[in-house]
């Protein structure tokens, strides 16, 4: 609070001070003490996991609060004008011109009934003062489309949003944000749904435009690596407060708050093979803050003095502040994670796929895929959305039945239909779904969910089943009292652990994990990945790990298969493929992958 005093004299840039957002009904704060400055022409990264309040802050910068919330206090000065002191009408007039916003999902931010050209000119007809004297609106539209890397052809201007790809849509959304030359742009995870190559281009565009037009940008993200590549300064949020902020290079080199350091230890890297260390526990829910430091209950450094009051932001370096009474030494994250121990030797192949061709209707989505999962090994299948990786997993599991080719487990061929597979085949192959919010029966307890497969695959008595459930919970590091909870009382990470536990309860030999960490925060992903890796080593479990995240592959898999447009483009041991890629697609993918080491 004290460390970033708002300078009254400087007028170019953004000065936020004392921002408080609370629930409209009970006046419970969900965001408090938020203060920062952004110079014009620079980008600030606002990092936080789900529920940290980063999105609430980002819309509060536009003078908006989601339904049920209200901005209770604070100032957001854009070039000296306080956004929060404006009347509703002034605020409306300022939007687009003074401040603008790029949401996460471009598909929902563009009007599906308007052509791209008219959407872009619309803002200019409302804000004609944004144009240089005598400049026609269309000229500005051409200019801004050029800037975001889209050729301003007649065809593009006349197309509807649904005719564009996700990357193009997001660039149109960014063009819309820049078209009136605002002073502050808030980008709320604009690249989350995009593949890495498109993401890289979008990030480059945002950085260039920010500099060229001397805009102050706030880039909200849960992804540290993305922020490393774009932000000049970074602020980390936890439980509604900024807990650490400073120059990006400084934060990424020497994070001092235990939570920030924890995030770094949890973040996978495509360059180094390290064990991921997650953060146990879960963050306090919005509006249910504990007394004192919000992180204390999960913090390995926590001491008694953390509990009485919320620590204030104190200086820990040049322009670098942390909200911690016991900050870590500045070299704490440099040598934090131990390397992954070598996996046990393996013999023979568990799963073999050859010439697999799969269809959805009349569209062929897999064009002859060959791969093997050696017994006791983890094979990762990496690909972007639409590459067919999930279809591959679904074919193997029996969820997708329209395919031809050969699929065999331990030497025996597997039927496409799960009903025609033997009971033993159904047991040894277990599938874990992507979305932990849909894969558990919401009407029965966690224990009953885990027990369900035991009813069909074993003849255990109710008491033995219960015993097995408790053992499984212990395997996935959940305490026994989870058995009696309902799924909706669990966080996403806990649910996913239950789903893995359910699969493990029947002693499978091959676990098919379909993007199981993609819905999870990085600190939770790290816990799950590490547990799976440990289980794999301890039990000789084979795994097929489907993911779009190249970095996480390194921490869990021994083999990697890179899939693009329904075909395997490269496969081999993880170190070989990631350190020395051969196929142009893999090379491109690795080059575009954002890295934790900051470049800005």
């Amino acid at each position: 609070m004290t460390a970033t005093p708002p300078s009254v004299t400087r007028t170019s840039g953004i000065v936020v001070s004392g921002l408080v957002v609370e629930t409209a009904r009970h006046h419970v704060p969900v965001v408090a003490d938020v203060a920062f400055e952004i110079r014009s022409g620079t980008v600030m990264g606002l990092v936080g996991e789900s529920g940290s309040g980063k999105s609430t802050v980002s819309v509060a910068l536009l003078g908006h609060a989601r339904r049920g919330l209200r901005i209770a206090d604070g100032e957001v000065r854009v070039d000296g004008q306080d956004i929060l002191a404006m009347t509703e009408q002034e605020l409306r007039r300022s939007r687009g011109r003074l401040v603008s916003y790029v949401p996460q999902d471009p598909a929902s931010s563009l009007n599906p009934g308007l052509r791209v050209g008219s959407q872009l000119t619309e803002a200019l007809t409302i804000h004609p003062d944004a144009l240089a004297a005598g400049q026609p609106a269309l000229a500005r539209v051409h200019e801004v489309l050029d800037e975001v890397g889209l050729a301003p052809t007649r065809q593009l201007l006349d197309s509807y949003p649904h005719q564009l790809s996700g990357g193009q849509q997001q660039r149109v959304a960014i063009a819309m944000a820049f078209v009136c030359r605002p002073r502050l742009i808030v980008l709320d995870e604009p690249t989350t749904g995009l593949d890495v190559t498109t993401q890289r281009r979008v990030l480059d565009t945002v950085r260039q435009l920010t500099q060229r037009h001397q805009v102050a940008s706030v880039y909200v993200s849960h992804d540290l690596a993305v922020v490393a590549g774009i932000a000049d300064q970074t602020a980390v949020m936890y439980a509604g407060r900024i807990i650490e902020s400073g120059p990006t290079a400084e934060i990424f080199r020497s994070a001092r708050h235990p939570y920030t350091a924890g995030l770094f230890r949890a973040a996978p890297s495509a360059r180094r093979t390290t064990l991921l260390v997650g953060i146990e526990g879960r963050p306090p829910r919005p509006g249910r803050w504990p007394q004192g430091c919000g992180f204390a209950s999960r913090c390995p450094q926590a001491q008694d003095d953390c509990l009485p009051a919320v620590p204030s932001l104190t200086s820990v370096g040049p322009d670098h502040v942390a909200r911690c009474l016991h900050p870590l030494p500045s070299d704490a994250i440099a040598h934090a994670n131990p390397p992954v121990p070598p996996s046990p030797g393996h013999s023979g192949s568990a799963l073999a796929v050859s010439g697999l061709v799969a269809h959805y209707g009349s569209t062929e989505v897999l064009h002859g895929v060959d791969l093997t999962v050696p017994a006791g090994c983890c094979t990762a299948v990496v690909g972007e959305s639409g590459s067919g990786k999930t279809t591959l997993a679904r074919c193997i599991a029996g969820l997708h039945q329209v395919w031809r080719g050969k699929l065999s487990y331990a030497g025996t061929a597997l039927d496409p239909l799960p009903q025609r597979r033997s009971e033993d085949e159904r047991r040894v192959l277990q599938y874990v779904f992507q979305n932990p919010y849909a894969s558990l029966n919401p009407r029965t307890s966690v224990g009953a969910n885990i027990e369900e497969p035991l009813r069909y695959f074993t003849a255990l008595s109710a008491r033995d089943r219960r015993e097995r459930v408790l053992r499984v919970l212990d395997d996935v590091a959940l305490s026994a009292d989870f058995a009696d909870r309902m799924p909706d009382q669990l966080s996403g990470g806990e649910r996913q652990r239950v789903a893995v536990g359910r699969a493990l309860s029947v002693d499978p030999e091959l676990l098919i994990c379909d993007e199981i960490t993609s819905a999870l925060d990085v600190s939770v992903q790290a816990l799950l990945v590490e547990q799976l890796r440990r289980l794999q080593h301890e039990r000789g479990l084979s795994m097929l790990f489907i993911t779009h995240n190249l970095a996480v592959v390194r921490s869990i898999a021994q083999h990697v298969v890179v899939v693009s447009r329904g075909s395997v483009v490269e496969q081999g041991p993880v170190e070989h493929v990631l350190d020395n890629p051969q196929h142009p697609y893999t090379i491109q993918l690795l080059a575009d992958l954002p890295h934790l080491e900051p470049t800005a």
Partner: protein
Amino acid sequence: MTVQTLRSGRARNDGPARRRGALRRTLTAALSTGRGRVGLGLMLLIIALAFIGPYLAPNDPTMFVGPPYAPPSHGLPLGTDDLGRDVLSRLLDGGWYLLLVAAAATAAAVAVGAMAGVIAAYRQGRAGGAIMRVTDVFLAFPQIVFVLLLVSVLGASTWLLIVAVAIVQAPQVARVVYGAAQDVCERDFVKAVALWGVPPRTVIRRQVMPSLTTPLAVEGGLRLGFSIILISGLNFLGFGVQPPNPSWGVMVNENLLGIRANMWGVIAPAIVLALLAVGTNMFADSLARAAFGAEQAEDFVAGSALGVGPS
């Protein structure tokens, strides 16, 4: 790691308050609204009247106690009917039959309709399509015409009345349940269990049905309202009840001629019927609102009335 897990487990205090099932949560939410409370109150009032009434009736409902169409007097607060029987006693005795028949018909309709809808949704493909096409054919007939056709062909005994009303209501239930079940059947937890090779019957019973309790409760409430109206309409037309016995629908018909001499013979049963129908509908509507939110609830209730189910 374990210590921290325990700590995080303790730090969260959700308590048993959140352990209630979705249906109970919906009920509580529905009863916290004025619409839900008034609706349930009306329903309970009329049901109480119908089932306690026979014991309170001052006279035998089939006994002649005065001249036909006598206006209200000291001993006969609602006067007499076309044959000189006590309107109040007949009113108090005329509800239980209607309610029992309506409840039985609704229960049968919901059971058959839910089964058909769930199976159609789970099976998809040709079997599911066939079931839904059959329901479409049933839905093409106007309800009352269809029941009249059945009753006049099959006869008018009580159990045939129940069967006829159940038959016309079931396709509407099937439509609604089909819509809700389609969504549930697509969920991963259902697929996960199916992948283990569990027979469809067990998957439906253990995984799909528990997620449908709320739409079923709402639909059951709405169907009950429709059944009451339908059956009292049939009673009015002379089907289902043998003449000396009272029923609210029958009473309206019997006393229509003498409405100018003693209007209570018609108005009293009409008011009770209206209150019952309004109460049932309000309560079902509040349930739907609590379960799906106001906007979707309107779609649900409107769709249910038309027999097209929620979109």
